């Protein structure tokens, strides 16, 4: 969502409770129980991202959790939409279908950072049907590596593949002029190595 306009002011709530209603409490607990119980496959965020956009933007946060959990479990074959509908008395809304192809080859893993602090890099300008953690507002943009982080499973692969691909991660600093074409304050984004390429000239 970074850089989108016209969402208006941030609405603060004084003394906000952790949960506002009992359904939020149950939704949070059930999502975490399913997650911590090992019944999910790391696809929760991708399931959230496939909610109908109009619904996603206007629904409360914990409704995203309920929907993603139901979607993930349906897609994993642990429950069916029919079972949900039978109990609900009408269709149980889930996220839109996964349109991305399944990957058979996760590609090569690496545990050695290719870039060093201070290196100039560019985020590859790619547009996937599937899941990614490369925010749209930094794709194609030049930045500077400011921190080397750990080696982690690349979500773009493990969401769509039975195997995983581990890669080094980085924190990369982007100047406001590069991102927005005007002076301002810098933004640092955490990125997997295969999102990056040499900055070139």
């Amino acid at each position, binding site marked *: *969502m*970074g*850089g*989108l*306009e016209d*969402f208006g*002011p*941030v*609405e603060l*709530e004084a003394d*906000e409770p*952790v*949960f*506002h209603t009992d*359904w939020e*409490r*149950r*939704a*949070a*607990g*059930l999502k975490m*129980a*399913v997650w*911590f119980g090992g019944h999910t496959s790391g696809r929760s*965020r991708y399931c*959230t991202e496939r909610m109908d956009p*109009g*619904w996603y933007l206007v*629904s409360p*946060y914990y409704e995203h959790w*309920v929907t993603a*959990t*139901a979607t993930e*479990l349906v897609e994993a074959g*642990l429950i069916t939409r029919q079972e*949900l509908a039978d*109990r*609900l008395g*009408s269709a*149980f*809304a*889930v996220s839109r279908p996964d349109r991305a192809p399944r990957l058979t080859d996760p590609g090569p893993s690496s545990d050695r950072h290719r870039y060093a602090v201070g290196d100039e890099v560019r985020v590859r300008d790619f547009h996937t049907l599937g899941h990614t*953690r490369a*925010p749209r*507002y930094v794709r194609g943009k030049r930045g500077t590596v400011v*921190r080397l*982080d*750990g080696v*982690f499973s690349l979500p773009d692969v493990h969401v769509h593949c039975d195997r995983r691909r581990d890669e080094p*991660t980085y924190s990369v600093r982007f100047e406001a002029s590069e*991102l*927005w074409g005007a002076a*301002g*304050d*810098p*933004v*640092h*984004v*955490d*990125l997997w190595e295969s999102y990056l390429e040499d900055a070139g000239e």
Partner: protein
Amino acid sequence: MSEDHHHRLPTTPVEARVEVLEALLIEKGILDAGTVDGLVEYYEHQVGPMNGAKVVARAWIDPDYCARLLADGTAAIAELGFGGVEGEHMVVLENTPQVHNVVVCTLCSCYPWPVLGLPPNWYKSPPYRSRMVREPRVVLAEMGCAVGDDVEIRVWDSSAEVRYLVLPMRPEAGEAVSETALADLVTRDSMIGVARL
């Protein structure tokens, strides 16, 4: 509209959907009601910004701890007994007279649960997620956090596995103040970077 489209938008209250999903998962043996209760109790009452405040207060009074915290946030936070899910890879960002740090997750809602608990609604809202990277100075001012023109604002988008905690500057509170009293001064918002103390 196609039948499929109707299935992709809710026609029932979310309360009913939560109830149905929970009941089905319990019936299938995927979920245990007691586990849900325990998790809710933990995240509603046992964990929250009071944890992060202890970390900050310790860093203020103990320069060696502060150095360890900035060098390896996860390990230093674990010294105080805090860690776990959504806090496995912690980086602590130090505010100075020249630099003000602020944290956002533009993709979703990444947040350091072991030290701050579950995030407030505004942190997960489209206005915060869309605007904090684009116009941080304006958003901070709107939120009551004025940052001087001579101070660089550094925005950190937690888009991978690292979770961030901001170490706010210690307010003027006299030298004789206890660690506990200092912790009481630390707010959740100051550790996200949307407030100064």
